């Protein structure tokens, strides 16, 4: 399984776990345009933090590497990695590819 497919699988796992813990999260379809942060976001900022922490753990386990999704690099990018499902996926793929 390539990195892109694996990252997608981990993200879906993390989202589904969050949904099972919080019935208020209503996401029926995961696509790259799903808004995660800011106006029109499908989850609130506290849930986003939970998601990021879960994702860091999953990635660490799966790829045997440590990544930080919330360092300055993420915060200073022109397009925030946390804007959408797609931008987050691309950012994680980028970080994992650099380390692997």
């Amino acid at each position: 399984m390539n990195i892109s497919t694996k990252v997608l699988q981990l993200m879906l796992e993390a989202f589904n776990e969050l949904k099972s813990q919080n019935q208020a999260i209503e996401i029926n379809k995961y696509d790259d345009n799903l808004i995660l942060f800011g106006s029109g976001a499908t989850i609130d900022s506290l849930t986003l933090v939970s998601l990021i922490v879960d994702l860091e753990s999953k990635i660490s386990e799966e790829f045997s590497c440590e990544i930080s999704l919330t360092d300055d690099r993420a915060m200073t990018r022109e397009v925030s990695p946390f804007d959408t499902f797609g931008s987050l996926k691309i950012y994680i793929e980028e970080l994992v590819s650099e380390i692997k």
Partner: protein
Amino acid sequence: MENKSYYFKNKIVCITGSTRDVGKNLVEYFIREGAIVIGISRTLDKLSLENYYSIQGDISNAEDMKNAFAEIKNKFGTLHFLINNAGVSHSSQALFLTIEKASSMININFLGAFIVSKEAAKLMMKNKFGRIINIGSICSTVEPIGASIYSATKAAIHSLSNSLAKEFASFNITSNTIALSPFPTDMLNTISQKDIDWYLNEQKIKRLATIDDITNVVEFLCSEKSAFITAQFIQLGGIST
């Protein structure tokens, strides 16, 4: 209260400003209770105790703290308790306080606590457990003459602590503030008896604090029994006004 020795045994504690006064006392307390203590300080720490690890760094420098917490993560894997204790005080009336000294207090007392809390929370969140204890001051409430910025930074710590309590609550991380009343320290030795009496007069219990007064509250706030206690401000000795 849990069996203290058992509860703190091998728990990982990080204390900023660990080389003197309250910080040093807290290091010794946690070591006695069986914890593994990491002290962070700007100056080289000469304290030599089993299970005590010293990291030299400036808490107001984000890069320093990123490296410090990477070291903690590599060596210990997690962090259970953070005591934001580091602070500086420059006593001077506002008109005579230099911007350099004011900035130093803001950076170390407030920004430093934010930077350290942020790094610590990343470790705590992964284990869904953590206790953040912020060392505040009676000054934030009584606002003495000559301590404008110091008092403001301690009030800011209180506000920061409450916001962090909200943001971290779902991770079973609590954040509370203990406001210290005058305690026999090197810093207190530089204050006149008249000024010390003024502080004591502002307190409901009119005596200096002891280290036990402080560790009793720290111990409770670190314990499992304080799991439902967060965003609290505990003023040692009480305030009369």
